[in-house]
């Protein structure tokens, strides 16, 4: 177990170091998120629909797109110079490769969300002060769900034609479920409902995360092996 996590951390660190040194992908994803939030501002009639009614959808559609953007590059990175083959012949276990990629993607998406959330609060004047901690909990659980399935699919699509288009097509049906849970939880939090009304959605999110991490861990070796 310790070795598995150690190896996973090595993979994740490699990806994150690469990401933070070049910063192109990360910056693009952050700017993209800011732009989507701006687009949402112009894509509604503020006199007709109260922001608070729309806020959960805006937040989650933005984060879903941002996550998909991030996941697209997870394995794209390894295509250059046959880096994936290098990883596969190294003494890394397949499971730690998957977990490492999940950790790196979580780091990447986490940074994007950490910038996106304050922008969302600022742009739409959403009162999050009292519910900040539970809201971060919802975001964390949903992001783990997005990334666990997304990393598995991202390993598959890099070897298909139209990879950039294939990932959203495969992934969106799987993201819709955690998205629904997260929107329901967020709407209740922002409306100031008691936490007991939210806990059911959080449990569903957690169950989704556990099930799909387990399934993806089992299936991942079959997606990368030659």
């Amino acid at each position, binding site marked *: 177990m310790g070795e598995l996590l150690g190896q996973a951390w090595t993979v994740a660190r490699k990806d994150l170091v690469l990401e933070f040194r070049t910063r192109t992908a990360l910056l693009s994803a952050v700017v993209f998120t800011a732009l989507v939030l701006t687009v949402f501002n112009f894509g509604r009639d503020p006199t007709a629909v109260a922001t608070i009614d729309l806020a959960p959808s805006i937040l989650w559609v933005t984060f879903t797109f941002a996550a998909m953007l991030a996941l697209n590059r997870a394995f794209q990175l390894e295509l250059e110079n046959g880096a994936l083959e290098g990883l596969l012949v190294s003494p890394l276990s397949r499971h730690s490769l998957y977990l490492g990629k999940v950790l790196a993607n979580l780091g990447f998406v986490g940074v994007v969300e950490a910038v996106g959330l304050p922008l969302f609060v600022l742009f739409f004047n959403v009162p999050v002060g009292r519910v900040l901690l539970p809201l971060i909990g919802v975001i964390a659980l949903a992001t783990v769900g997005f990334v666990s*399935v997304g990393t*598995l*699919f991202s390993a*598959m*699509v890099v*070897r*298909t*034609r*139209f990879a950039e288009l*294939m990932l959203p*097509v*495969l992934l*969106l*049906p*799987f993201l*819709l*479920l955690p998205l*629904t*849970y997260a929107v329901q939880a967020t709407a209740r939090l922002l409306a100031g409902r008691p936490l007991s009304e939210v806990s*059911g959605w959080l449990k*569903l999110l957690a169950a*989704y995360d556990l*099930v*799909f991490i387990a*399934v*993806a861990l089992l*299936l991942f070796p*079959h*997606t990368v092996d030659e």
Partner: protein
Amino acid sequence: MSLAQQGRRVVLAGLLLLGGVYVRALAFTPVERFQGPAQKIFYLHVPAAVTTELAVILVGLAGVFFLFLKDPRLDRFAEASAEVGTVFAGIVLTTGPIWGKPIWGTWWTWDARLTSTLFLFFLLISYHLLRGAVTDAGLRARYGAVLGICAVVLVGFIHLSVYLFPTLHPQPIVLRPGKPGLPPEMLVTLLLSFGVFLVLYVGFVMQRYAIALRREAASHG
């Protein structure tokens, strides 16, 4: 007789039987008190929905066994089952609105059950898209298996959450705790229709399997 020909005969038999089921449904099964004749579509809609789910579950099971056994027959079967499932999901999504318009007054509503069928349809479509985007046959089979397994897990999840959302859709009336909630004549017609849809499923899968075999032969030759 080739597999394709056998499949065609099974489908033909299934279609004739379906005609028989509808004669029974229209002439010898009582009219539902509140819905009137619109309810007759139920004998297409429900068996098609159940067969779709069966097809998807079999895609997932075939995927699990394929990853262990690497038997190309399992992959051909999964591909065939997914394609037939897509057609049946299409039947569900067409007959549903035809019934919904007179009974609910709307073609479509974002009800949990309707949405989950749409989910299933999208999953099946993306399964075919993924297969079409992979050029290597071995890789295509493995990717198909992986996506098929994930799809079944997701469908299971959707089923659990469907019960958490309020729904307009009629509740299950046959497979439920206690006795089936419909008169025996209707139940018999429905069960006959289930049987006929299974025959159609088998016939279509046989034909689709034969197509997969021919495609492989063509690409090797």
